[in-house]
């Protein structure tokens, strides 16, 4: 599966680079992340709870950074495994300085998935991964702003992570973009109405 896209950060490449090096920030930004820590130079370990349609479960994996060119680009390799299957990916991240102290982050990569995640979750994985990414960027934007404010005030930046509820809402919103989901929800709504009617009548 190909993953690519871009995002505009309101901060300099250096600030964005630092943001991405903060494991607490990353753990907060990626929904479902239960643990993320630096285990050795440029190597992180993470535990993440993932739900893709009918498939859910815990993934544990490693994230390795290489080919770093501060503050312009780096390569990221991910390898994760869990009860729902496995994933393995390599991607390139490029930071380009923009006007007004902004940074455009471009990312492109190839992710391989296997097991139940691939077999049963395939239909939804595109939507779900887009949700994860877009929600991560929302959180990162907020945290970057907070860091900049905190730096100006000379205090530690607070980190508030997105809740599982926020994530679920994001997935639902993205799924609604797919018309079939409206049908499913419509049908569910109809069933609920019928059930209420039946209860009311008897």
């Amino acid at each position, binding site marked *: 599966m190909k993953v690519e896209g871009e995002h505009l950060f309101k901060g300099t490449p250096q600030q964005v680079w630092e943001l991405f090096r903060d494991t607490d920030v990353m753990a907060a930004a990626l929904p479902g992340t239960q643990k993320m820590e630096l285990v050795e130079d440029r190597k992180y370990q993470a535990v993440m709870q993932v739900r893709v349609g009918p498939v859910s479960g815990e993934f544990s994996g490693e994230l390795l950074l290489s080919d770093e060119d501060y503050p312009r680009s780096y390569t990221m390799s991910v390898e994760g495994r869990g*009860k729902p*299957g*496995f994933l*393995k990916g390599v991607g390139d991240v490029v930071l380009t300085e923009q006007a007004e102290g902004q940074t455009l982050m471009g990312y492109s990569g190839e992710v*391989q*998935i*296997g*097991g*139940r995640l*691939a*077999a*049963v979750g*395939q*239909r939804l994985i595109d939507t779900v991964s887009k949700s994860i990414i877009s929600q991560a960027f929302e959180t990162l934007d907020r945290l970057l702003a907070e860091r900049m404010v905190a730096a100006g005030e000379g205090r530690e930046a607070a980190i508030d992570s997105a809740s599982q509820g926020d994530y679920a809402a994001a997935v639902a919103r993205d799924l609604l973009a797919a018309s079939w989901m409206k049908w499913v929800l419509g049908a569910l709504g109809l069933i609920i109405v019928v059930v209420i009617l039946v209860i009311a009548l008897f």
Partner: protein
Amino acid sequence: MNYKIIGKRVKRVEDPRLLTGGALFVDDVNLPDMLHAAFLRSDYAHARIKSIDTSQAAALPGVVGVFTAEDMGEDWEPGPPLVSPPPTLENVTFHSRRQVPLVKDKVRHAGEIIAVVVAESRYIAEDAVEEIQIDYEPLPAVVNLEKCLHPDSPLVHEDLDSNLAAHLVQKKGDYESARAEADLIIKRRFHLDRGAAAAMENRGLVVDWNAKDQHLMVWDATQSPIPIRNGMAARLGLRTHQVRVVAPFVGGGFGPKIMMFYAEEMVLPWLTMKLNRPVKWIEDRRENFYATTQEREQIQEVEMALSKEGRILGIKQSIIHDTGAYNPYGLTTPLNTQSHSMGSYDVENYESELTVVFTNKTIVTPVRGAGRPQGIFVVERLLDIASRELGIDSRDLRRLNFIDPDDFPYNHQIIDQAFTELVFDSGNYLPVYEKALEAIGYDRFLQEEQPRLRQEGKHVGIGVVPFIETTGVGPYEGARVAIEPSGKVSAATGVGTQGQGHMTSFAQIVAEALSVDVEDVSMVTGDTAEIHWGTGTFASRGAVVAGNAVLAAAQDVRQKALTLASKILETPEEELELDGGLVRVADIPEQSISLGELAVLANPFRGAVEPGTEPGLESTKYFGPAYGATAFGVHALILEVDPETMMIKLLKYVTVEDCGTMLNPLIVEGQIHGGVSMGIGNSYYEKLHFDENGQLLNASLADYLLPTSAEMPPIEVIHLNTPAPNNALGTKGVGEAGAIPVPAAFIQALENALPEYELEILETPLSPNRLFELLHKQEENQ
């Protein structure tokens, strides 16, 4: 022959039980003290196993044991080769690599079994499976049929030099000379992809070792209980009579349920003997997508040489056939493709190179059609293209090339799936073809309906495709028929039943031979306690091979009844007749004796059984044909395609079938209906999507589309009868026929519906998405 009961539309006697939940399926078997198994299957298509840690799983409450290949010790051995390569051909390369009970060192397809958990319930067993830790070293997967033969491709079996599983060339006549004389050479590349059999009932086993009795009882949703019994006994070091295998009612077979031995069929009997408790496992749908065998992927390059008058001078073919990770079923499927690549036609020169490859995908064994649809697809597609290029009506092209009825038996001079000469025993193709054209209203459709509907903006097309099906191959099948003291008849045959209505059609044969009512015949199939010898249900052979064995046994019992009655009634046999369960003197009907009384007298309490005779009115007979019976037919259909949504509606479907003598037309029609629906799936819906890592991406019935009743048209079935000359009943098989020509006819109709695109479709299965891509590619080209 004038039959009273054979050939009648007798309603299926098994249906009341099936329809009211009264029929036994494997999952209905629940024994006291029974344990449940769940399997850990590889997520990777290709990976080395570095270590396995089962300690956490074993520690879960309710888990009785967790077992890996290492635990099997010396009992670990691969499954038996089911079919060896043809000994009758020279220069055959064949590397036999068989599936294993539990993976030892390397997984070769996603879904392969690494460990088994046995627990007090399936829930606990499934939970425990998730606690097993495997350290894998992932390897690049072998997926593409052509790239896998490249010298630097990873290897599925590292002890081989390449991924080549088999190679052979079959030749007839001299293709190169034919090519030199030809006015037109058409060469195309075809890609046919994989589908699932998707039986309604998944596989399942209940095994019960009784140590006191020293007896192993097995219920297995298999098509071939007797070979399974033989194999289990051999693997476990038991006498064959110590093992009884029952294939009760089975909810669909379609081929994959004969892939003896599945890993589960090797592991479970071993477990029950080790644990001394019954063990049950029922396959779930996702396991079925990974672990139950599949079929159809081939890449073919085929060349057809024709004269300008439209005679086929020769066919040259190169087939790359995907056998998946192992090849227990030998070359049956691709040999069938070769046998059907000349279709219904008289082709003097044929050269076909077959290359079979190992890939990191689920094992390939026959699925209803078994290589035949691929052969029919390429030859019929090439004729459609030839018709356009030569400017000859596609119907005339076919009429010109059909094998002449006087040329039967027609020896094709190549080897068929049973390694015997490919001989078409009988046939008369033109009347069947003309009948189909008439029934679908070919001329009227092209001249009136299609132009009218085009004016209304509707895209409708017609497809008509003839086919042949080699059926009823050996080696043999047996039947035991006995008259009970009650006068009822019991009969048994070794072939298992997966919905074919054997309990009715075979009972009709017995009833006919013994002049009793069908209801008085109790037919048992698929129980090794009822008959000792046999092979199984496959290759559209039940009605031919088992049917004729049933006839022979029933006729022998009839003779025994007459001989005994002649003595008792003091009347010569020629003056006796059987009717309504009685043997009577033809001229003096009141002088009679019932079959029940005869059965009692045939088993005397006093005196002696005469030398040279046997007690009882019972007989066991076998039938083994030298070569198969070739059925044939034509499918004709009209479809409508919406070029906006790419959705298809089948408006009319006619099949004309000639399967020789029909035992029961109702059952034949049911077989055709089922086969057509499978063929429609193969044409437009059912495709297994594997990614480049060997991951199956649509392993659920939400993503893998089976045609439903909404996609099915009403089907008209017309019967003609050219009896098979080499068996007493004159029967030919029909189990697979319905599925064989459908993709070729469907695609012909699709092209006919969209003439403005000048499509040339050389692949199946299509899908709405794929048709969309093809149409847009054509628009760009135009």
